[in-house]
């Protein structure tokens, strides 16, 4: 079969996989709405273009920064400084390719997307090639850019071929390993996460895997957004460590690859031999891992059309006991939402977020690099993200949302349960951050108390945002998915959050310049007042009538 024909057929699988992958992430799209479906289809392309632009910008800016980096600016060893920078780029492309291929890999493994192609008169070899092409198309342009952009820019700037010649294979290793890990995680998702078990041990394992899954998926965002803040911290850290510790650290992937790259581009005769050998061994190991990883990936992808595509054969355990625990409706909704969120990769970031936030918070605390600016950005992220989780929790029902409406569940019970769940998630994080602060004596006690004081504000703002969503759903017939994209709704949400959470926090920081104690008392009073005002009026607010 001609390559052009295979390319055409692979496009069918590719588009179907992309579409289903987006559906997996945005599970509440109304498929009877032609406009919504068309928008979803076009967002496949837009998503890829945006990722490509992001990789290009990061590649160009990091290559330029690396070229102009002087030893004086990092106050230490230039090679190690550049190593941190290159490994930053490596990690960035690792996460982006992972992010791009994680959901599509899940669809490749989970859904019978090959059904229309399998019935065509294609030979097994052609079918395998078509499948491989379709898989590669899911991240083709971003992968090519990720491999070439950084080495090309560095080669142009330094007027030398070496950054290109040495850089391309190393970037290729990163991209290959990333897509292999993504496919492995997708496979694990279906064989472990989606399979429930009564065994507690298996469930713990499932939870750990789910956290790993989420951290890698969510890590793209967190790493991308905090890249510039983390970079100087890591560079300073790296340069302050004694040589023997560097030898140990340099073994860590992808620092070893980045170090080897810089050694090859620098006058390597002056470098410590022991460090170079450590990095070389680690790089050889990474290369070997990539070789076997890619071989496994190719085998897995090309045999997919011939396997049973749906779920792996499930061993259904026959339970002895059919007894079910009964709780009150509020707790029942919270339990159900937690279960649904923890089992849906696109929603699990609600659970992952506190873990990622804790790690982000912990890093500068441990390194002693905690600044007021960093604290402000932490508060900013908390204020922005937690009310956003209200939307996610409204989307958690997915297509089964209509089933919930067949049950005698009052609107206020539904919304209270969801707002309470958001607050519980927030409160867990707040307590963890406060305990960390107490342990490391950073920041001061009053700012730590503010973390806890915000909780009622998170509840009230979530409650109001979700009430608005339910009202719009009933009165205007808008789906939750459509709603979250409307400018009017986004504006409403931002104003609600700014007014109910932002202003008290801002007041704390302003008054805190004079007296932090007074600032935290005022903020806590405001948050509690919001709660006291909202609680009595909610019964009148949300009628159950259609």
């Amino acid at each position, binding site marked *: 079969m001609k390559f052009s024909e295979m390319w055409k057929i692979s496009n069918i699988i590719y588009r179907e996989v992309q579409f289903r992958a987006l559906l997996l992430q945005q599970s509440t799209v109304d498929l009877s709405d032609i406009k919504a479906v068309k928008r979803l289809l076009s967002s496949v392309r837009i998503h890829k273009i945006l990722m490509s632009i992001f990789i290009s910008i990061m590649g160009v800016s990091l290559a330029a920064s690396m070229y102009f980096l002087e030893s004086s600016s990092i106050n230490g060893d230039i090679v190690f400084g550049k190593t941190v920078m290159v490994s930053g780029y490596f990690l960035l492309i690792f996460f982006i390719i992972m992010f791009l291929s994680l959901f599509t890999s899940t669809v490749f493994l989970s859904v019978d997307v090959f059904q229309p192609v399998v019935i065509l008169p294609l030979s097994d070899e052609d079918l395998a090639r078509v499948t491989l092409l379709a898989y590669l198309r899911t991240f083709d342009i971003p992968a090519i850019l990720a491999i070439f952009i950084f080495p090309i820019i560095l080669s142009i700037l330094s007027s030398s071929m070496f950054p290109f010649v040495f850089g391309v294979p190393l970037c290729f290793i990163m991209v290959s390993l990333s897509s292999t890990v993504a496919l492995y995680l997708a496979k694990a998702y279906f064989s472990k996460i*989606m*399979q*429930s*078990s*009564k065994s507690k041990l298996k469930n713990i394992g499932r939870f750990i895997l789910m956290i790993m899954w989420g951290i890698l998926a969510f890590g793209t965002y967190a790493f991308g957004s905090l890249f510039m803040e983390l970079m100087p911290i890591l560079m300073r850290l790296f340069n302050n460590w004694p040589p023997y510790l560097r030898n140990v650290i340099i073994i860590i992937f992808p620092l070893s690859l980045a170090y080897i790259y810089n050694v090859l581009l620098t006058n390597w005769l002056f470098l410590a031999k022991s460090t170079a050998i450590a990095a070389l061994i680690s790089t050889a190991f990474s290369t070997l891992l990539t070789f076997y990883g890619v071989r496994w990936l190719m085998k897995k992808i090309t045999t997919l059309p011939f396997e049973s595509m749906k*779920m792996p054969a*499930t061993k*259904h*355990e*026959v*339970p002895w006991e*059919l*007894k*079910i*625990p*009964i*709780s*009150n*409706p509020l*707790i*029942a*909704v919270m*339990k*159900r939402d937690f*279960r*649904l969120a923890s*089992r*849906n990769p696109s929603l699990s970031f609600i659970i992952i977020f506190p873990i990622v936030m804790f790690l982000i918070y912990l890093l500068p605390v441990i390194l002693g690099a905690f600044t007021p600016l960093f604290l402000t950005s932490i508060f900013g992220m908390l204020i922005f993200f937690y009310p956003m989780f209200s939307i996610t929790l409204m989307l958690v*029902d*997915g*297509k*089964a949302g*209509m*089933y919930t*409406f*067949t*049950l*005698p*569940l*009052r609107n206020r019970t539904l919304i209270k349960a969801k707002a309470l769940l958001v607050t519980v998630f927030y409160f867990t994080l707040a307590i963890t951050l406060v305990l960390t602060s107490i342990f490391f004596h950073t920041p001061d006690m009053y700012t730590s108390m503010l973390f806890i004081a915000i909780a009622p504000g998170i509840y009230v703002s979530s409650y109001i945002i979700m009430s608005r969503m339910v009202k719009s759903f009933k009165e205007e017939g808008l789906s939750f998915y459509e709603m979250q994209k409307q400018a009017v709704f986004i504006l409403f949400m931002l104003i609600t959050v700014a007014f109910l959470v932002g202003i008290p926090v801002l007041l704390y920081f302003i008054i805190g310049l004079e007296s932090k104690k007074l600032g935290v008392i005022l903020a806590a009073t405001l948050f509690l007042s919001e709660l006291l005002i909202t609680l009595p009026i909610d019964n009148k607010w949300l009628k*159950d*009538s*259609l």
Partner: protein
Amino acid sequence: MRTSLSDVVIQVKNLVKYFSNVRAVDGLSFEVRSGEIYGLLGPNGAGKTTTVKIICGLLKPTSGEVKVFGFSPMENPVEVKKRIGYVPEDVILYESLTPRELFEFISSVRNLSMDVSSKIGSLVDAFNIRQYYDSPIATLSIGTKQKVAIIAALLHDPPLLVLDEPLRGLDVRSSKIFKELLSIHIENGGAVLLSTHIMELAEHLCTRVGIIDKGKLVAEGTVEELRQLIRKAGASLEEIFLKTTEQEEEVAEIVNMLKEAFGKK
């Protein structure tokens, strides 16, 4: 919550529902009484599911009146939903939950007592799904999902069952059990509103039948009454249906055309 025999359970008067400019339901009126299975029949797009959704408090009608046990589904949807066991046409359940977790959620939302576990046990064994009890719903076949939806609708012993194509995907054994369950439900004074395409099912199960076409009720009564209406003794419900929905001649023409196209030359 049980009502006495021949109490009006569902009352639909001049129901109208528009979707943009399309009139899905056009002045529909009928009643369902306790102790009867009322079959709602009609071709695709006749307005059956829309009517069912309005009765269950899931859709707002454009005009008309609907009462379920005296409650309006528009003003009091929670009271209506408490009394209904609903099996929707497209069973879309929470795919990542297991049947155990789904039943736990539904029983909790419906404020049922711990005794529900024994009822679940009986239904799970009756429909032979014990082995799937702790498996994610996503891993179940369409038929098993349907069984889960049926059990979920029966957990609270509702006085009214609203069933939209309930036999979809069910095997012969489960269909038989389900029909027997409906008989027990009726003997206990319950009521059933059954929307279906399967004429045999309606013919054998339904006490009365309402045929709707283009959102309007075109015929109503027992199967015998409908036979008299079309003046054809011994006519099957399929024949009655095609006659009342004025599709009889059209179907005959299509059959002739197909015979010409695909018949032995």
